[in-house]
């Protein structure tokens, strides 16, 4: 019991960090779903692309010897912007190539195309990396600034890394909120989400707004990828699958199509997962351990879809035939 209490602060911290990461990824799913009612299955690879752009820049700086010379905050800023740009642009390109031609098709058709895109991108990253570096398991070089921790009192120690993740995520969420709710473009996106036909009659370029949605969602995913790389260090072309699936769960948990819901869902899921990973083995006397944490997310997903398909914050229900 004492042990259980003593790890509580770090478990909470892990959960919140994980939760913000899921929230950032979940935004990509939820925004696209809000506009097109379509699960962008390849979003998990958009996330991985962000992580790979970050690691490539860091490794490039390291080999040229300028990594130590530059201020870490500047380096972080550069990789974040580069990762977001790349992920956003690729998400946009994907929409143009693999989804737009299928927009009027039955709803499972674009989903299958998205699954195909996801698989294709995984091996495409592997292809590029194995030609370029002869390996596709990369690890982020450590930045000294990120390896320190802040101490609060005697017991609580907060790694700078985790603070960085939370601060970046909060900043992004704030900008996204401002963008969607307070700018003209954001209003246009919301209009397309509500009713594409009417929005188009009002002079909103629907296709361009959909592309913009993919760009913004993809950029959030790319930022999450970089934070993921900084936090957990190891990335490979296939490491997007589980975070992607869990972020989708988070989006559904919060009510898909709902932006604040995605954030809430992400944090709830992150906390649940962190608690399951640390306490499951204590509660069951070691019979079931942290290896079941992945199952946990799926169990949550299935239960939510059965009992509350609208999610925690969802009020939008669209009835439809197929």
């Amino acid at each position: 019991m004492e042990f259980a209490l003593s790890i509580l602060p770090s478990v909470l911290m892990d959960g919140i960090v994980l939760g913000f990461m899921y929230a950032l990824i979940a935004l990509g799913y939820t925004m696209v779903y809000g506009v097109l009612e379509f699960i962008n299955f390849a979003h998990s690879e958009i996330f991985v692309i962000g992580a790979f752009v970050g690691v490539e820049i860091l490794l490039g700086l390291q080999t040229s010897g300028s990594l130590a010379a530059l201020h870490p905050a500047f380096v972080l800023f550069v990789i974040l912007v580069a990762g977001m740009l790349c992920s956003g642009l690729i998400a946009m390109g994907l929409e143009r190539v693999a989804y737009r031609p299928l927009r009027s098709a039955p709803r499972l058709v674009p989903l299958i195309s998205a699954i195909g895109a996801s698989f294709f991108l995984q091996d495409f990253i592997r292809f590029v990396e194995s030609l370029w570096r002869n390996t596709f398991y990369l690890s982020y070089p450590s930045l000294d600034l990120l390896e320190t921790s802040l101490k609060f009192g005697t017991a609580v120690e907060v790694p700078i890394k985790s603070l960085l993740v939370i601060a970046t995520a909060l900043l992004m969420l704030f900008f996204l909120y401002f963008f969607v709710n307070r700018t003209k473009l954001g209003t246009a996106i919301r209009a397309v989400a509500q009713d594409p036909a009417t929005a188009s009659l009002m002079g909103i370029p629907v296709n361009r707004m959909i592309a913009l949605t993919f760009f913004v969602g993809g950029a959030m995913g790319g930022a999450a990828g970089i934070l993921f790389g900084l936090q957990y260090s190891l990335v490979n072309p296939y490491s997007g699958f589980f975070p992607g699936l869990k972020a989708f769960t988070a989006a559904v948990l919060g009510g898909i199509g709902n932006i604040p819901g995605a954030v809430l869902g992400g944090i709830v899921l992150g906390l649940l997962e962190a608690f399951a990973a640390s306490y499951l083995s204590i509660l069951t006397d070691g019979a079931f351990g942290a290896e079941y944490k992945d199952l946990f997310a799926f169990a949550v997903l299935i239960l939510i879809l059965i009992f509350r398909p609208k999610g925690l914050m969802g009020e939008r229900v669209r009835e439809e035939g197929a």
Partner: protein
Amino acid sequence: MKALAAGLGLIAYIGCSSLLVYYHPQSVLAFLLFEASLLLIYYAALPQKAKLFLSSLVLIFLMPVLGVSNGYYLEVAIQVGIYVALALGLNIVVGLAGLLNLGFVAFFAIGAYLWAIFGSPQANQFIAGNFFPLSPWWFFVFLVLSIFAGAFTGALLGLPVLRLRGDYLAIVTLGFGEVIRSLVNNLDKPINLTNGPRGINPIEKPPLFFQPVLHFFGFESAAASLYPLYFYFLVLFLVVVIILVTRRLNDSSIGRAWKAIREDEIAAAAMGVPVVRMKLLAFAVGASFAAAVGVLFAAKQVYINPESFTFMESIGVLAMGILGGMGSIPGAILGASVVTIVNLQLLKGLSLWLNSLRQSGIVLSLPLLGSFDLSQIPAQFEPAKYERMVFGLILILMMIFRPQGILPPRQNSERSNGAA
């Protein structure tokens, strides 16, 4: 007259292509040409009986004969057969009933582990006494049992989730597939059910009950050389049974109900189709096929571990079905054969070719680009590992350019069948 010419032409083609395979045991192309003879038979303007005769000639006589002379082709044929059976099972769920199941491999895993646990010493870990492995004869009992186990788990999954909308259903089945894989991976404690990531080894093979008969007729063969042929015929048998069941179901009121649900669920419900029950039935039938194939797979592999049952396998089977044409039996067969052969032979061939290039030490000197030493091709670049890219490209390209597949189901098949 026309039929006679077609028949003679086909026989000539089959003869030539099998000679080609016989004399070029390494050629992928020859084998593909040989496989294509089945497709030609399907399309030829011949009476049903002649088609049946020719295809059984190819499958029951020529393929085993060629397989004995070259074991590798027999292995490819067995793998193709296993995937054909899986694709046919998925075809019922996705093609006929229109339910996208992304966790199909879970049922395959359930069948495989069912036989693996009881057909190996593994079950001794949690059942007292030393009863296991069961004798090979139990293989057939488990083949039947697995059909029920598959149907049961299929219904169990279906019951809560079938009310969900199409794309949600897809994601939940994906989650189910991962749950099963993860359980199999982790259930080595507290009770060692599945031996976790280490997998189960050795699994009993089915009994060689016909060996005394062969002996009587003077054929003496070692068990090791008999097993590939045996598995080939078992797989063939399973595929034929699945095709027959699918065809009967397709032409029955159940099949019509499935297709009605696929086209328009609300209209189907309004016409009195019991939607949820029919969907459950589709799930259960597809799952039981997959589980039966799983039993066979476990017996053939002798060693299985959770790696064989990943999400990628589910998508692979889906890609096969979609390539061939969902809802169509020849489509599923064609898709499974093409994808398996591409993966097994074409990609591997490319890998070998690259390897030989690496070792050749040739230095290419290109104008403008300078020279490039071929031994510098990165060792991590191995086309044989790019199955996902193949599946991904198939899915995207087919969805954009030909969503109905290469061999879509014939629209008016019912009417023409009725008239004949």
